[in-house]
């Protein structure tokens, strides 16, 4: 990056967390309304991309929970594992299990679907971050 923009840097710092928060909201919202792991993962990548472009690839990479490729693979693993409990009850793979926990008047629904969705979220975030960093890195070499 040839020129720095102080204002953009300042905004990006807080916008990063806001975007991640929004992506988690979309992730959880996916249960009853449009949303879900894939689209939330894309939003998270947008946040990472913002940091990578405004600052540099390294600082964006440092903010990820894992190395990008490992994040992607951990996501795939999580999604695969979430399908296994369903098999115990003689059901097909990926038959999801639901439990309700009553707290006061509310029922919090717990399920293996959320594990699957978090897995997809991590897989998309990690995979696209890998591509993104690879692209931005070569750009640096050329110019």
């Amino acid at each position: 990056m040839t020129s720095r923009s102080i204002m953009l840097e300042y905004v990006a710092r807080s916008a990063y967390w806001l975007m991640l928060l929004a992506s988690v909201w979309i992730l959880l919202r996916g249960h009853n309304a449009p949303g879900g792991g894939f689209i939330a993962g894309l939003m998270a990548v947008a946040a990472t991309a913002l940091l990578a472009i405004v600052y540099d690839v390294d600082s964006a990479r440092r903010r990820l929970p894992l190395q990008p490729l490992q994040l992607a693979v951990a996501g795939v693993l999580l999604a695969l594992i979430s399908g296994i409990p369903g098999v115990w009850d003689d059901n097909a793979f990926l038959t999801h299990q639901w439990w309700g926990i009553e707290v006061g008047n509310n029922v919090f629904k717990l399920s293996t679907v959320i594990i699957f969705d978090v897995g997809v979220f991590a897989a998309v975030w990690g995979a696209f971050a890998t591509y993104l960093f690879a692209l931005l890195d070569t750009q640096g070499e050329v110019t």
Partner: protein
Amino acid sequence: MLVLSPLLVPLFTAVLTVLLQRHQRAQQGVSIAGAVVLLLCALWLVQEVSSVGRIQLALGNWPLPFAIEFVADRLSALMVIITAVLGLGVLVYQTSIAEPASESAMLHPLLHGLLAAVGGAVLTADLFNLYVWFELMLITVLGLLVVQDGYRHTEAAFKYFALNLLGTLLFLATVAMLYGTTGQLNFSALADAAQHPELKAVIPVYVAMLMSAFLLKAAAFPLFFWLPASYHSLPAPVLALIGGLITKVGIYVLLRLMGEVFIDQPAVFYEALGWIAIATMISGVLGAAYHWDLRRILAFHIVSQIGYLLLAVALATPASGLAGVFFMVHNILAKAALFLIAGIMWQAAGHYDLRRIGGLYPARPLLAVLFLIAGFSLVGIPPSSGFWGKFLLVQESFVQGRYLWGGLALFVGVLTLYSMVKIWLEGFWKPHPQGTAVTATNRQLTPAYAVVLVLALLLLVTGLYPEPLIQYSEAATSMLWQESAP
């Protein structure tokens, strides 16, 4: 779970191999162990479907036709076991020094990802899901092209990517339109919907689009030029897996879609497909005759053999399906064996260009024998496995009165012989142009020889004792082009 094992086992293995990236030996071990487990699962699956015939599984217990359905029958189980055999063979071969692929950290994950994609593509009974597996196949092959360093590979990867993406997009667009028209994605539901009299006029348009997409992916005439342009730059083991298997998955899907889902198409389709098959055969074999690079010759022969398989689809009867399936098994084995032999030849003689090597017969008699077995099978000299494949196919075209197609298929066999004789004379028979350059035998080649030996034995057995495979294929293809197909 057994139905899903051909995709779950490689997926888990791929994940594990990524996690073991830093530990090369452990990664290799896990990778080979995963391939062994896959092979065992495949054997079990074949055993199961041979007794019960057909295993269905609707993912997530959703009701059909909304669930993504996976179906294992004899046909898909056969593809699964071939995939598993090739996967294991390639990974074992990779441990030798006969032009292994560079051991980058992503090689094993990508190879297992590819196996998972093939497993998914042959087992799924859902059109959109099929698209997803084809996409995964495209991505992993692209990755395999890219992880090999160097400009040559990047160029090959780009050609592969651009043309296959076109096919994928066409496929996706057709899936969307079919879904918009019929409201179905499940194969059997689509088969029912396609029979609807109101849709009789529009379905053939979609089928034509689907056919074009898969013909591109299977490298049929006139869209085959991407294949020799991209494949020749791959190292031998990866090339054996990709060249042996991937284009055939396109043919397998075509056979399934034409034979089970859209069975009743206008006659002009089959006529066109037949001529495309003949053109593919001839252009492939002529391209091979022109080239001197071993890998290019073999890559063009993939194209030519695809023509035979297309001819089986074009003839559109259970008997031609049987011929096609038998031919496919033989061809995947023979092709993979030849690519692996080419890798050993490269190691021993130092080059892929036939003009610059030679003298392999006195130096490597075992390799020469193995080449003869695989080469004769490819040509179809009796009693090799290729002979039975071609015999069944040509017989069926004569029975249907397609004398020209059958005759041309035989003629292409003669031209194939020319290519194999060229490799034999140049690579094995004539002395090496630089006198000595055949390198000393090396113990590290043992795994490579072992793999090729097993493949050659499989070819010999199917050639000398074809009855079990013919019976199995007959049972596997009896449901093709039947009105009452499930």
